[in-house]
């Protein structure tokens, strides 16, 4: 490698991979198989995993339904106001998790208009599944919006304009031309959002420790039963997550045509 900058970059890459992979590999190889077998037969573990995956799924689905059109809107609008809104969307990712928990908790109390309306409608956040979805949606939706913006700005607007002049309406242009072009980016955003939703712990400790998510259960078992049991539950969660993300990645980006 003659290029000096590339040589330095290559060593940086090696260091980065080592730093990222070492803890994961140690974690995977040091998991006790007997303990793994024990927790695999524990119903509470599977219920927690179900709550984690389902809440992340609902949150990601809501994120796609709301975030993709919002991302399209922001991608097509110019001006300082829209750039400000674009920055505002990433704000939740910058707020510490415990503070997010306090915010969502305050939102759900009777002391404000939103909270009292929610309670009148029979929607309670504290120790309810809806509360878990509200928390993970708040911390993860930004990934979908940002990815949608970058997806919709990755091709020239003239492609859409030509489509209109060919007699294709705006809805069909969006669904058949713009969306497929932005899809790989949106999929990456959805995967990141799902992963972020699954990993949330701090805010959930404040808003909803029941029904137990896998993260809360791991903390609980770490305190009551020790590291080995917590590690075995974590192993199952990581295995399932990686399998799911791998499948999504292969199906979503396998047919690259552009």
């Amino acid at each position: 490698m003659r290029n000096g900058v590339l040589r330095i970059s290559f060593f940086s890459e090696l260091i980065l991979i080592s730093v990222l992979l070492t803890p994961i590999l140690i974690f995977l190889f040091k998991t006790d198989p007997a303990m793994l077998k024990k927790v695999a037969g524990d119903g509470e573990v599977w219920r927690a995993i179900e709550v984690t995956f389902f809440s992340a799924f609902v949150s990601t689905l809501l994120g796609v339904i709301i975030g993709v059109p919002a991302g399209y809107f922001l991608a097509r609008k110019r001006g300082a106001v829209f750039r400000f809104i674009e920055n505002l969307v990433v704000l939740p990712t910058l707020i510490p998790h415990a503070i997010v928990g306090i915010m969502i908790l305050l939102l759900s109390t009777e002391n404000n208009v939103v909270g009292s309306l929610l309670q009148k409608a029979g929607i309670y956040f504290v120790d309810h599944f809806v509360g878990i979805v509200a928390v993970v949606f708040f911390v993860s939706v930004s990934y979908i919006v940002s990815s949608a913006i970058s997806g919709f700005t990755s091709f020239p607007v003239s492609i859409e304009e030509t489509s209109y002049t060919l007699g294709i309406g705006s809805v069909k242009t969006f669904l058949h031309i713009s969306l497929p072009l932005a899809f790989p980016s949106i999929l990456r955003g959805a995967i990141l959002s799902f992963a972020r939703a699954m990993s949330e712990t701090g805010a959930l400790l404040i808003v909803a420790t029941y029904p137990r998510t896998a993260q809360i259960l791991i903390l609980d078992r770490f305190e009551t039963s020790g590291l080995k049991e917590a590690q075995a539950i974590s192993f199952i969660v990581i295995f399932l997550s990686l399998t799911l993300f791998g499948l999504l990645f292969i199906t979503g980006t396998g047919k690259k045509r552009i």
Partner: protein
Amino acid sequence: MSRRMYVHFEKKFENFEVNVELDYDLEKYHVIIGPSGSGKTLTLRFIAGLESGKGRVEFEGREITKFPPQRRRIVYIPQDESLFPTMTVQMNLLAGVKLGKSDFDRDLFERIVDVFKIEHLLDRYPSTLSAGEKQRVTLGRAIMVKPRLLLLDEPFSSLDFHIKLELIEFLKNVKKEFGTSFIHVTHDPIEAKLLAECVTVIEEGKVTYRGNFTTLVESSRSRFTERVSEFFSYLK
């Protein structure tokens, strides 16, 4: 009765103003020429319904100013690549028919495939085509929706000279074969000379000349037309 189009377009910017009036016999091949930033593209986009502004667009006596682009039957081909990258050539050709309101005409499709020499490309994606092939497919796709007018915005600006000459001959053939009306924007005087049956010069947002190309070269009315004359004298 000859097919006519009338356009009046006004738009003010901070340091620039467009005020253009065009009255075209659409049986002729029209070329709009002028220096960069003179308002040529804005005018074309206004005709297509893609640019806001004051004024009106009339087609055969009928005002279409308030029609959205999808209802005008005026296809705009921009300078940038505009083929749909996730669709094959065949899907691109049929996009306006399948997703829009045009009826499928099998004879027309077969003629387009034949005249545009794209039969061997039908299953390929745009990313695998050469620049010339892309332009042929783009034009074929436009003809497929039977437009009443085709607007070409510097379609050959990024092409090599020999491909450009090939496509110029090709466009003349398309006009004859399909009876399509064209308004073609360029800043290249050679392109204008080879294609135009009527030339319009737009400079600083205003029409400064309209007529045939020979008279334009002889007239030297403005700095731009003088430079075009000088260019052709030099070539001689």
